[in-house]
């Protein structure tokens, strides 16, 4: 065992931390101490001058502030029942998002678990900032040092095996292939995986609401943040814009689209840089989609001057459309009068629908059977993390109920 632990780089905590975690039992979820600890960490992050350069870090710091934690506590904790953290949570974070591991850790802490977190091997400055402030915080809350171990290690199944054996819950981010790899390491009999697989997301824009929306610049910024900010490659990033016409004329719909893309283009033009290979990838995917599916009519956006924004109008939705996804500003577009038309793209791969308009427009769709769509949230908030995520109730999954009759 020692040899295996020697292959690990410890960012926060030590091999002893990990060894001490087993069979200690979980803590009370959302206990006062963890609220104080996270709030302190949040302060230290926000106080660090470099945090201002990283909006993702700031957003996380706000998420673990006292007020937000209290709000979550109110939603999740049932004061009449007894709950404990499940024990040890082993988190495998995605390698190309900086702060995701911190959310996963905070979720584990809030639910009363000890946490082993494999952080991305890439040296993100955000991670340095978060780890440094966390270590500082833990100096003040020494009892919590034994609950947190942040590690880095290569693709090493022996290490995956050892850490998985300790886990009561294993949280796997990073998509299908990572899940397949990590699952080669067995878990204890009562342990289970929470898997965040490859997903895609959509956006629905109500034509009327958009035309009457006062601040189109804000709408564009929100949509930009939902998409381009993560190269349109987060599972929450909309891949398609569905225009909910619902009584609006074709001309009004066209006008709304023209305005929407023009405002978005202003954001893109100022902020987004594209690498040559991404431009080639976008053209490749557009042709692949067109080759296989004659009824789609891909058209290049006329409001955009270059490869950073590619729009492809489709005249029919089918289950294969989302096999042709691309990053870096590549959007399918579809117009409909009834959102039940989204059913073919609402399969199990569909995660989030970002919307602009009245969420009541989803009523017809939500009355149907569908295997995807875990979240319907306003555009601009698709990335807002919550303990109910990707269709999982993380609070329930990371805690254990004690029944006394």
């Amino acid at each position, binding site marked *: 065992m020692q040899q295996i632990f020697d292959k690990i780089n410890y960012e926060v905590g030590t091999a002893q931390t990990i060894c001490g975690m087993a069979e200690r039992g979980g803590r009370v979820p959302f206990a006062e101490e963890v609220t104080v600890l996270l709030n302190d960490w949040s302060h230290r992050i926000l106080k660090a001058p470099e945090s201002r350069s990283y909006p993702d870090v700031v957003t996380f710091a706000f998420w673990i502030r006292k007020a937000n934690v209290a709000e979550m506590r109110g939603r999740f904790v049932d004061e009449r029942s007894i709950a404990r953290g499940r024990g040890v949570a082993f988190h*495998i974070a995605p390698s*190309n998002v900086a702060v*995701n591991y911190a959310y996963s850790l905070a979720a584990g802490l809030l639910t009363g678990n000890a946490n082993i977190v494999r952080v991305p091997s890439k040296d993100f400055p955000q991670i340095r900032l978060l780890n440094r402030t966390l270590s500082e915080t833990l100096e003040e809350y020494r009892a919590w040092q034994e609950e947190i171990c942040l590690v880095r290690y290569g693709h090493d199944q022996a290490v995956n095996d050892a850490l998985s054996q300790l886990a009561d819950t294993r949280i796997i981010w990073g998509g299908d292939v990572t899940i397949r790899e990590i699952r080669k390491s067995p878990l204890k009999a009562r342990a289970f995986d929470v898997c965040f697989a490859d997903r895609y997301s959509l956006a629905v824009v109500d034509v009327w609401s958009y035309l009457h929306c006062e601040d189109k610049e804000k709408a564009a910024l929100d949509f930009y943040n939902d998409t381009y900010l993560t190269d349109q*490659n987060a599972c929450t990033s909309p891949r398609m814009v569905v225009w909910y016409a619902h009584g609006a004329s074709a001309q009004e719909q066209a006008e709304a689209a023209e305005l929407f893309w023009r405002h978005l283009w202003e954001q893109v033009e100022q902020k987004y840089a594209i*690498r040559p290979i991404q431009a080639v990838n976008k053209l*490749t995917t557009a*042709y692949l989609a067109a080759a296989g599916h004659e009824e789609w*009519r891909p058209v290049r956006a006329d409001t955009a001057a270059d*490869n950073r924004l590619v729009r492809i109008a489709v005249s029919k939705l089918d289950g294969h459309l989302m096999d042709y996804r691309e*990053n870096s500003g590549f959007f399918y577009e579809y117009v409909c009068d009834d959102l039940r038309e989204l059913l073919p793209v609402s399969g199990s791969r569909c995660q989030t629908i970002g919307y602009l308009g009245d969420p009541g427009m989803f009523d017809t769709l939500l009355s149907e059977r569908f295997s995807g769509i875990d979240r319907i949230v306003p555009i601009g908030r698709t990335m807002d993390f919550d303990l109910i995520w990707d269709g999982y109730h993380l609070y329930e999954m990371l805690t254990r109920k004690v029944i006394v009759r």
Partner: protein
Amino acid sequence: MEYSELLEYEPYSLDHSQKQKLLTKRLTDLTAHHMAHCRLYKNMMDSVGMTQERLREAVSYEELPFLPVRLFKELELASVPKEAVFKTMTSSGTTGQRVSKIFLDRQTAANQQKTMVKIVSDFIGSARMPMLILDCPSVVKNRLMFSARGAGILGFSIFGADRTYALTDEMKLDIDGVRQFLERHSGQRILMFGFTFMVWQHFYKELLRLEREEGERFDFSNGILIHGGGWKKLTSEAVSPEEFHRRLLAVCGLDHIHDYYGMVEQTGCIYMQCECGHLHASIFSDVIIRNPDDFTVCGVGDKGIIETVSAIPESYPGHLLLTEDEGILLGKDDCPCGRRGKYFKILGRLENAEIRGCSDTYAADFR
């Protein structure tokens, strides 16, 4: 327009505007031909609004839609019925990668060969020379599925007599075989052909070892080396084209060295490096450097993505291709070597982008 009309001309005899006129006619005809005969290609052209009317109005092949070369790895694109496919060529993708599949009928295959003869003869003359192939014999054995390496060797073999493989199937230099080859042709010009990396790894390095450890030196001062396949593998060893040339000259006296740029998707239309070190487009093909931001055409001196144009392909829609290589147009019609048309330089493969987002790269290392 028939391809045979182009074959009437010498490969570097037309200036850019004359060439543009001819090629535009041929390439619009090819686009129309493939739209009529390849359903998938037609769908793709529909998606960008390319119609027969718009084709007739095109004044330059720079306006015609180009296909990313990767599509030939994802789709089977042919403009002839299956029965007419005479051979299928594949790119030499590394293990696990998907390979391009290129379908040739007799006509297209024959035009590829005729074109290559015309281009290469311009550099080495049309007399056959004894030929030393710097590769192993097994690479051309499976004639039904041609790899790029095999196709290159067979393509250049028509310029050679007494074709001899310098390497064994274990990729060892066949020292006795090479010695005997040189003895048989002492005093004659000899043609040598191989892939850049193979030449370096299995030929140059072995010659260097022989000289250092066994004091044996081979004399290739009568040799003309044509090599291609790219510098990607050599950049990790930090070998530049100049270094490559210098070291070969030092180890065996080889001084006539022509790199070429070409791809299995447009076999026949190779871009040969002239005496001034420039790659040249013949009248049978062209390069267009495209701005990665919007795919507009770059001028002389601007870096961009290379589109390659070939007037040959009739059996598959590969006449206008966007490569994943980066290059610079050096000039038109005015290379000091006297050849007309465009000349250019390859800068290498487009860098793979690191994409943010939660779908992972973790797994990539497992493959």
